[in-house]
């Protein structure tokens, strides 16, 4: 059972665990307030991991290679999809930490220790575990590791009242969500008698599982995942936490973990419980419609940028979930593949845009001044045309305007939705676009504030961020445009990864 393959499969995780522990120890001997040694050790670790995972993913996509490797009796697996998701989560975290370090240092978040780095590494370990999990307990373990690390991260500014409140809310509601998920998983275990995903699939396909318990379990699983992802009506924690947490932590929550939750959603629902597709599709449809309505309509009315982005996240989640609502009637795997690839592409494009928008907010903040109200951005184009342009790109991408990557994300989802054009699907598509126009108003408002309004505070102070931050941010913004004009490579990557996953996990395709 504990053969060499098992260790190869989890080698990146082991390396990450070792480095996280090592950096925790190393940090004890660091005395500088900016934690340079811990920071660089973290960044090097992340870089190595990103390259490692990318090379795994490339190897696993080769036709002469097995589609997936299993370890520890099938409890964990490594496939191209998982490796890509790990790679992107790692890169997202690396970019987040680049933006977060000066911001956090100015707010005395690094004075007592480098928890920002170590806790985010442990969160990343949770992300890896979740993505690699092929077994209910492994998945749950990963989820808890992410959750516990993020609870602590939100509370990192001990003396800050709002952050503490946010941490408390996040902790209580997050625990509730974990409870939901665990409850649902245990019911699934009860119904099928196994915690391994492939065995669960078998059992459901052969109709040996007890149907009513299975359904009840499914409801709890979908609710738990929706909680963690932040889809209405399970979104209540999200605006408060996004607003209350320091912006650096908000971004840590907004970028990488969502990729993991998305991956688990694909693994659990699409591959594990494919037989129950009509049921969970109905649930996801309700979630999607609620999220689209609530997220976009609420985003319009916000005056706090972080809160507005939080509501917009909910709306974006709704759009992404729509892709799952394709009919999977009589084994139409083509549309299933399209749908999963569309949602994966959507998640990635959202992550890039979220990194940019929160990155800009952090860049414009400085010691004793928090850039978080929309009016703080007023007249940005007057003195910082480059960053105003980058922020505008990110907003246009979120709104789904062409020449940015967000357009293809929206188009792919609409296309997936319309592969089986029933009245219901067309109605959903129409709702989605009407709500996108509502959301576009919120995003355009930020552009209006930056470009059309006069600066509020006169000449702003010089930026405190170094050239590394600026270069990363510019590169990050340019990605929106590059993938917006030449999306072929990213689209193909998503499609390939999804095809591989569907082939080896459910024996389809």
């Amino acid at each position, binding site marked *: 059972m504990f053969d060499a393959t098992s260790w190869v499969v989890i080698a990146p995780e082991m390396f990450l665990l070792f480095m996280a522990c090592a950096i925790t120890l190393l940090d004890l001997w660091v005395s500088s307030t900016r934690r340079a040694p811990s920071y660089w050790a973290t960044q090097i670790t992340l870089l190595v991991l990103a390259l490692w995972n990318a090379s795994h993913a490339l190897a696993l996509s080769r036709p002469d290679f097995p589609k997936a490797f299993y370890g520890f009796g099938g409890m964990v697996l490594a496939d191209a999809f998982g490796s890509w998701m790990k790679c992107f989560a790692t890169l997202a975290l690396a970019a987040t930490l680049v933006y977060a370090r000066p911001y956090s240092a100015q707010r005395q978040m690094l004075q007592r220790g480098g928890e920002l780095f170590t806790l985010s590494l442990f969160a990343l370990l949770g992300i890896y575990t979740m993505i690699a999990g092929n077994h209910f307990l492994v998945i749950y373990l990963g989820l808890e590791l992410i959750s516990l690390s993020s609870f602590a991260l939100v509370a990192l500014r001990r003396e800050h009242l709002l952050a503490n409140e946010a941490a408390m809310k996040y902790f209580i509601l997050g625990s509730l969500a974990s409870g939901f998920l665990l409850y649902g998983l245990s019911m699934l275990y009860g119904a099928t008698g196994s915690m391994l995903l492939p065995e669960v699939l078998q059992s459901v396909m052969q109709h040996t599982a007890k149907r009513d318990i299975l359904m009840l379990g499914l409801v709890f699983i979908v609710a738990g995942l929706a909680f963690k992802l932040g889809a209405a009506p399970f979104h209540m924690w999200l605006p408060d936490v996004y607003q209350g947490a320091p912006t650096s932590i908000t971004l840590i929550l907004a970028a990488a973990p969502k990729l993991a939750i998305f991956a688990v959603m694909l693994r659990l629902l699409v591959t594990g419980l494919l037989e129950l597709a009509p049921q969970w599709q109905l649930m996801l449809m309700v979630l999607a419609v609620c999220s689209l309505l609530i997220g976009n309509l609420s985003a319009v009315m916000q005056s706090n940028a972080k809160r507005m982005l939080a509501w917009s996240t909910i709306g974006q989640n709704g759009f992404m979930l729509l892709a799952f609502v394709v009919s999977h009637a009589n084994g139409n795997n083509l549309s299933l593949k399209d749908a999963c690839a569309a949602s994966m592409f959507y998640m990635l494009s959202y992550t890039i845009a979220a990194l940019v928008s929160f990155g800009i907010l952090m860049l414009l903040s400085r010691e004793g001044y928090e850039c978080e109200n929309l009016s703080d951005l007023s007249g940005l184009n007057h003195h910082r045309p480059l960053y105003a342009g980058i922020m505008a790109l990110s907003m246009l991408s979120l709104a789904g*305007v062409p020449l940015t990557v967000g357009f293809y994300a929206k*188009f792919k989802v609409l296309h997936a939705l319309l592969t089986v*054009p029933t009245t219901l699907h067309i109605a959903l598509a129409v709702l989605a*676009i009407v709500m996108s126009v509502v959301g576009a108003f919120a995003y355009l408002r930020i552009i*209006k504030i930056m470009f*059309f309004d006069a600066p509020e505070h006169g000449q702003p102070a010089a930026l405190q961020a170094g050239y590394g931050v600026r270069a990363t941010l510019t590169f990050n913004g340019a990605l929106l445009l590059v993938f917006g004009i*030449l999306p072929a490579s990213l689209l193909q990557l998503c499609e390939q990864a999804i095809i591989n996953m569907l082939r080896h996990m459910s024996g389809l395709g």
Partner: protein
Amino acid sequence: MGFLSFVIWTPIVAGCLLLAFSGERYNRLVRWAALLAALVSFGQTILLYSRFNPILSDMQLVENVPWIPGINSNYHIGVDGISLWFVVMTAFITALVVLASWTNITERVNQYMGAVLVLSGLMIATFCVLDALMFYVFFEATLIPMYLIIGIWGGPRKIYSAFKFFLYTLMGSLFMLIAMAYLYTVSGNSFDIATWQALPLGATEQTLLFFAFVAAFGVKLPMWPLHTWLPDVHVEAPTGGSAILASIMLKLGGYGFLRLALPIAPDAAHRWAWLMLALSLIAVVYIGLVALVQQDMKKLVAYSSVSHMGYVTLGMFVFSEAGNSGAILQMLAHGLISPGMFLCVGVLYDRMHSRQIADYGGVANTMPRFVALAMIFAFGNFGVPATAGFVGEWTVIIAIVKANLWIGLIGGTSLVLAAAYTLWMVQRVYLGPIANDNVRSLRDINLRETVVLCVLGLSVLWMGVYPKPIMQAMDASVVKLTQHMAQSKLQ
């Protein structure tokens, strides 16, 4: 990279480069560089015309390379007789707008010139692409620079107008996106517009697709009752923005009808022609009456644009060769006359900071040179023979009278209305005794303004006197389009 790619990307690249030169000290450099880029771009389109073979009805100078292989979308561009003149006109008007905005844009000149050039390239691309996804990308992307042009350099209510413009048109085009996603699926994952045009479709499907396209292009053109964004936007946009909007951006809608809506859903178009004709007649007559009572010169010109665009749809929906070429000629004529009208209002506004007709009177006494040129556009606007307006309107009227005398008669009243509102404005603004001291102290137009208005005025006269090259180049393509639309695509 072929020649047509250069035509598309030269202004876009030049515009992006200009963005790097922010700051007062570069203003002079930026203006000259923008003018140079715009002239080079115009020169390229003239070369394009010389390479164009008017005998062929097919796409010419075609380039086709995979763009997004995963979803089968290609960088597929080409021109035919329908798109050729729109490309030339875009580059022509852009160069004039750069020159016309020389001194009245003083803030962030590089961003303005950059936006105008990028916009020009995006619009040329929209006229050239033969791949539906790319068409959508460029069609929508034009909103971004225009939104910024209105919002940054516009008038007092610029923000309201910029939002109205963006959201209104975004809403319309998103319906088209759904239609495209559907067509992509039923055509077996193809974005080729020619494939879509040949695709057999059922009656209900065609109707839904047709109205999805009408939502996009009807807003853009604009058709009554989807026109309400236009007057607001025109009033608040800077002069150059108004000129581009009226001259070229509206034509994207008309072009979209000819390239996508009508050939893809011809049966639905025939079936709903009565509705489209009715809406067009309302636009022509009712909006003409609305224009008559306007107090604001820019609003008057804006309403006159809506009314003139009614002719375009009238021409298209009688489905005859003369109707289609009339629609295109009307678009081209309006593309030359309306920027002239807006630039004239801009000239006055620069001096008096008012667009109210009541503030003027007897301008001809103090600005004779200006008024002489302005009269060309005024006459063009109501279709006096020997101006471009005559060619467009006359062809359309002949076509609709052939199809139905009554529609022709109602449509023809617009000639009278256009003459009424244009001449009444001319009389109140330009003619008569000097109304007040502000008018008395007006300076006549300088050399730069004279050049802009002269070139534009000459082009209006040229198209009115000698439209043969224009008609010759588009003839073969129009015949092909008309034949295509006459065939049923029902299964």
